[in-house]
């Protein structure tokens, strides 16, 4: 508690000096354009915001970085960026922990003969590489230089190509483990365009997902979640139905009104069956009559009874679904989750393309754009070819930037073995991950938050990145390194910088978008804006004439051989994606929404199978394929098919820093090296594995005290039918009061949480950790029930009798009017402010924990230890919030620091606080706008309006205790999937 703020205050002096002396240090960012506050000067004690782009996954959300005294302390979505629109996911928030990761490589390092790392100066390192490259060029082996990078667009993409051109090589791999090969393949087959379309969930009237986890990891989860939230807005007690068909109850599936469980790889049959019904019943709107017979012929085998045979879905249901979907006009069907790659992924996606096509959804909810930027991603097939050339010694120098193929490539692919043949392996990486650990030279690069750059997630969206702070360590931008190398190779003294390079490229964009304006203005405006955003240029697609029944058959992957009894399914982890998030402690600590596991990797197994093998939750089980074997704790899960085991990808790092190492095991070790038959992707799914109970209990850290709520009406759900029937019924609010209630003279802060919109993504939890300096306690303490999350996404599976879907209840301090926690505190550390906050004064708390015992919602968190923020993670701490010491109770404050800020801001402007001035961190980031905060005394405030509009859905948790919470929940709603 002492150190951090003192450090900040020390910095205040330095910061004001830094503003007074421009250009005194080399690495200083130039011409930073603050967004919210005009760039007069940085004022100590006040935050400055910089717009940039999140590079934690290929989605490319626009962000605002909050900087205090020269340090980035929080990341939020950029409201004008079309992908994020002000929202951000957990992984986006955790980019800060990438920036301040204590395991970052702090200066260039070279591997010695004995395998230990030694320091090397930047110039020496770059010269060493340049010399090697010069030698190769002299020998005429310029093409032996290769570059693997994560998916890049824009300036860096161009620069890498330019660099490779300079040395005369074309060995460039835009490598993403999850490359959506099946979508590309399907588009190619059905429409003859090898592209990945954009999906518009907010414009659909019916949503079906065929195993696509579009709210978690699939393509652009924040955008999808945002649009999904809009789609699920209730209109006259009705909303857009959402059906999920898939092998596993993922977070996306659980948000569906109906989840139909099918064996992995059989989803396609339903899609084709629906097409069958639609084309035979003549309700297809999307296609000309001429094509109708064509399509009829394609799907002629998939009459509903055949679908029932394949998937187990009753044929009447198939017919009803088809009719409802066709009537939606437009509906939206999505497919192509990486977890189905290798298991009829391409077939399912093709079927879904066809379904969308016949319903006329193409061009409305499924849009192909002129430039599809994800299509540049190299497929696994290309990687395999590259491995072969490495093996043959055709690669002498390999650069790896922001990519970890040693971890994400199946072990059986031989990547690691082939890597040894490369003479000089240069890791342009910030972390010592599995790939950099094998490198000869590590040139640490700036984190995206310290870098210039640009990123185009989709057509017309030009995101611009600017450094929000000086680099934490002695690192450089990847672009600067490449430019320096290029200069060295060309014996060019001119030290061009990547900043200039980006600017030059933006001159082109300027020419394209606004040729008649002043470039400087355009540039400054773009920086402030976080980029330039124009409408996408769409393209129309037509059904491929050659598309036939046979084509469908060709898309089928081989049926998995079932020898050992279990089919393996892997899927990208919600928090760690392909493993890159594993070294962010927040992402380790924030539970997986469905399983509520933390700091762990697990095997999901159906209760029937588990009973047969005598496996209980947390038992160690061995999963063995022909390629490898791993041991993991079991998670007995109703949401999975019998005979299938599912393991998330992302954990099981052997390197990658203290937070990632030695947690679980990576299912990638089990995967086959061979390509999926159709798409050339990794076979993420469909592998035959055996499961053995190792008869050992593992210490798993599961946050859920109970998976079910029983008779307790914590999480309430209604169907639209019930809602319409009881649309006038309100919760009984008035209980007899013994005491005269206290008056709130100015404000009474309150919150409304729409459970129907909460998808469980936990972005609010991460935002809260980030905003409120919540420490990460680690696995052992989570296991003991000592996690400190102020807001918790509680998950129950039994909220409705007729469905096993998990549902989410964001549980945070309810700021009760008659709070049971307050009167029991002997020292007034817990008390009620006259604005209705249930306040906790940390420095007054003596730690009796009585308040926590007496809180029926169990939202108070106790500091069992003095928690450590290993440097430089402590730089992330929000200077506006006290860091709590051991022995002190803490809890949600409704972001009281933001209320104070808003009040001060209003005061400076000589007005009252307006509705919307105070936005707590959780509401700010919630992609679906499930959380709304505001003044309950103001009848026009959004929070009151929402309550007013949804009277029949509003309820207080544990209302019968008469705690009179300030948080009102709106009941979750189930829409009918067939009409």
């Amino acid at each position, binding site marked *: 508690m002492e150190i951090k703020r003192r450090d900040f205050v020390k910095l205040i002096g330095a910061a004001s000096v830094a503003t007074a002396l421009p250009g005194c240090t080399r690495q200083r960012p130039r011409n930073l354009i603050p967004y919210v506050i005009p760039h007069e000067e940085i004022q*100590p004690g006040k935050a400055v915001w910089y717009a940039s782009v999140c590079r934690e996954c290929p989605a490319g959300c626009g962000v605002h970085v909050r900087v205090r005294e020269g340090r980035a302390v929080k990341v939020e979505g950029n409201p004008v960026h079309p992908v994020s629109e002000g929202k951000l996911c957990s992984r986006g928030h955790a980019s800060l922990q990438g920036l301040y990761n204590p395991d970052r490589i702090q200066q260039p390092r070279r591997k010695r003969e004995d395998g230990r790392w030694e320091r090397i100066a930047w110039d020496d390192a770059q010269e060493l590489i340049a010399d090697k490259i010069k030698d190769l060029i002299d020998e005429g082996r310029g093409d032996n230089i290769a570059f693997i990078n994560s998916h890049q667009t824009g300036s860096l993409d161009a620069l890498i190509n330019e660099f490779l051109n300079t040395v005369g090589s074309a060995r460039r791999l835009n490598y993403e483990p999850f490359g959506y090969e099946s979508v590309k393949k399907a588009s190619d087959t059905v429409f003859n365009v090898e592209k990945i379309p954009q999906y518009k969930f907010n414009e659909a009237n019916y949503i079906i997902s065929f195993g696509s986890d579009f709210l978690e990891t699939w393509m652009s989860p924040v955008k999808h979640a945002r649009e999904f939230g809009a789609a699920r807005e209730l209109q006259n007690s009705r909303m857009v139905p959402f059906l999920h068909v898939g092998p596993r109850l993922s977070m996306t599936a659980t948000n569906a009104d109906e989840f139909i469980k099918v064996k992995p790889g059989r989803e396609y049959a339903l899609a084709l069956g629906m097409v069958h019904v639609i084309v035979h019943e003549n309700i297809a709107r999307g296609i000309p009559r001429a094509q109708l017979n064509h399509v009829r012929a394609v799907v002629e085998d998939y009459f509903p009874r055949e679908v029932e045979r394949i998937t187990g879905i009753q044929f009447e249901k198939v017919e009803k679904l088809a009719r409802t979907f066709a009537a939606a006009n437009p509906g939206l069907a999505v497919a192509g989750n990486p977890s189905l790659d290798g298991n009829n992924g391409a077939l399912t996606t093709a079927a879904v393309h066809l379904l969308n096509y016949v319903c006329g959804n193409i061009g409305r909810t499924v849009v192909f754009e002129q430039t599809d930027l994800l299509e540049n991603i190299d497929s696994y097939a290309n990687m395999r070819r590259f491995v072969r050339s490495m093996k043959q010694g055709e690669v002498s120098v390999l650069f790896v930037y922001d990519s970890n193929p040693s971890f994400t490539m199946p072990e059986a692919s031989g990547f690691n073995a082939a890597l040894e043949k490369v003479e000089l392996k240069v890791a342009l990486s910030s972390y010592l991950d599995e790939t950099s650990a094998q490198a000869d030279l590590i040139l640490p690069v700036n984190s995206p938050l310290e870098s210039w750059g640009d990123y185009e997630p989709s057509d017309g969206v030009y995101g611009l990145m600017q450094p929000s702070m000086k680099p934490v360590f002695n690192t450089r931008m990847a672009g600067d390194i490449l430019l320096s190398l290029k200069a060295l190779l060309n014996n060019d003294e001119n030290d061009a910088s990547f900043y200039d390079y980006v600017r030059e490229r933006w001159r082109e964009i300027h020419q394209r978008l606004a040729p008649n304006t002043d470039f400087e203005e355009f540039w400054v405006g773009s920086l402030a804006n976080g980029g330039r955003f124009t409408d996408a240029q769409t393209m129309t697609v037509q059904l491929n004439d050659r598309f036939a029944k046979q084509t469908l058959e060709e898309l089928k992957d081989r049926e998995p051989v079932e020898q050992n009894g279990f089919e393996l399914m892997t899927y990208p982890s919600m928090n760690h994606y392909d493993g890159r998030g594993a070294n962010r402690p927040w992402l380790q600590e924030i539970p997986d929404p469905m399983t509520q596991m933390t700091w762990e990797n697990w095997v999901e197994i159906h209760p029937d199978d588990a009973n047969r093998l005598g496996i209980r939750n947390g038992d160690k089980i061995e999963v063995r394929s022909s390629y490898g074997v791993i041991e993991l704790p079991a998670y007995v899960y109703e949401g999975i098919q019998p005979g299938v085991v599912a393991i998330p990808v992302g954990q099981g790092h052997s390197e990658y820093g203290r937070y990632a190492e030695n947690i679980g095991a990576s299912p990638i070790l089990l995967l086959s090296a061979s390509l999926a038959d159709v798409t050339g992707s990794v076979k993420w799914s469909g592998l035959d594995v055996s499961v053995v109970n190792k008869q050992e209990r593992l210490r798993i850290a599961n946050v859920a005290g109970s998976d079910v709520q029983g008779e307790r009406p914590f999480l309430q759900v209604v169907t639209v039918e019930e809602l319409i029937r009881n649309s006038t019924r309100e919760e009984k609010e008035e209980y007899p009061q013994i005491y005269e209630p206290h008056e709130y003279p100015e404000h009474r802060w309150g919150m409304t949480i729409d459970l129907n919109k909460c998808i469980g993504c936990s972005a609010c939890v991460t935002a809260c950790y980030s905003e409120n300096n919540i420490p990460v306690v680690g696995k052992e303490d989570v296991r003991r029930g000592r996690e400190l999350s102020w807001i918790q996404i509680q998950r129950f599976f039994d909220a409705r009798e007729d469905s096993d879907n998990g549902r989410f209840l964001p549980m945070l301090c309810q700021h009760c009017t008659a709070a049971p926690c307050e009167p029991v505190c002997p020292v007034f550390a817990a008390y009620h402010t006259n604005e209705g906050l249930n306040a906790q*004064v940390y*420095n007054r708390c003596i730690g009796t924990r009585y308040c926590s015992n007496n809180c029926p919602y169990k939202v108070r968190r106790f500091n069992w230890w003095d928690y450590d923020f290993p440097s430089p993670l402590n730089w992330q701490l929000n200077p506006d919030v006290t860091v709590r010491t051991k022995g002190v109770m803490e809890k949600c404050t409704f972001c009281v620091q933001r209320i104070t800020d808003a009040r001060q801001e209003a005061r400076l402007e000589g007005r009252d606080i307006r509705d919307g001035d105070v936005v707590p961190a959780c509401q700010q980031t919630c992609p679906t706008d499930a959380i709304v905060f505001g003044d309950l005394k103001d009848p026009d405030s959004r929070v009151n309006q929402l309550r007013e509009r949804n009277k029949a859905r509003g309820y207080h948790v544990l209302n019968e205790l008469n705690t009179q919470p300030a948080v009102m929940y709106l009941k979750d709603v189930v829409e009918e999937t067939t009409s």
Partner: protein
Amino acid sequence: MNQNFLYPLYIILFVGFTALLIVVGCERQPTHPRQPIDFSHKVHVGEYKIDCEYCHSGVRSGPVAGIPSVQTCMGCHQLVAATEPEIMKLREIWERGEPIRWKRVNVVADFVYFDHYPHVSEGISCETCHGDVGQKDELLPTPHLHSMTWCVDCHDTYEASKDCMICHR
């Protein structure tokens, strides 16, 4: 009132232990910080009547008053008293392009969030809290700035809010 001798023994142990805990638990204040430059408020404020806000310019727009940048110092000292030994020091620092590493004099606890603006805007003079710095060559810690009693008394006098969340969060 002497009694069973175990009882006083117990009390002594208890009190002693408590005292130990209090001592351990307390933060210590810096007593006599040695500044890199012998800056004198007496000269600047007392003799030359320079307004506080000339240097501590943040008070009307935000929480922190701010320590003036070296540039602010040099704004005058390019010419004024340029040959004084302490000013020579300043010039050296300026030429090296370094910030001056002033030592903090008053360290308010980390859990206290004091915002200058609302106080200044209500017309509370700087002297009310910081004392007559124009009389002092060297600033020493002002004990009342670390005492909540002092804050609360003043809030009582001015009928300002005594809500805990005003200062603690």
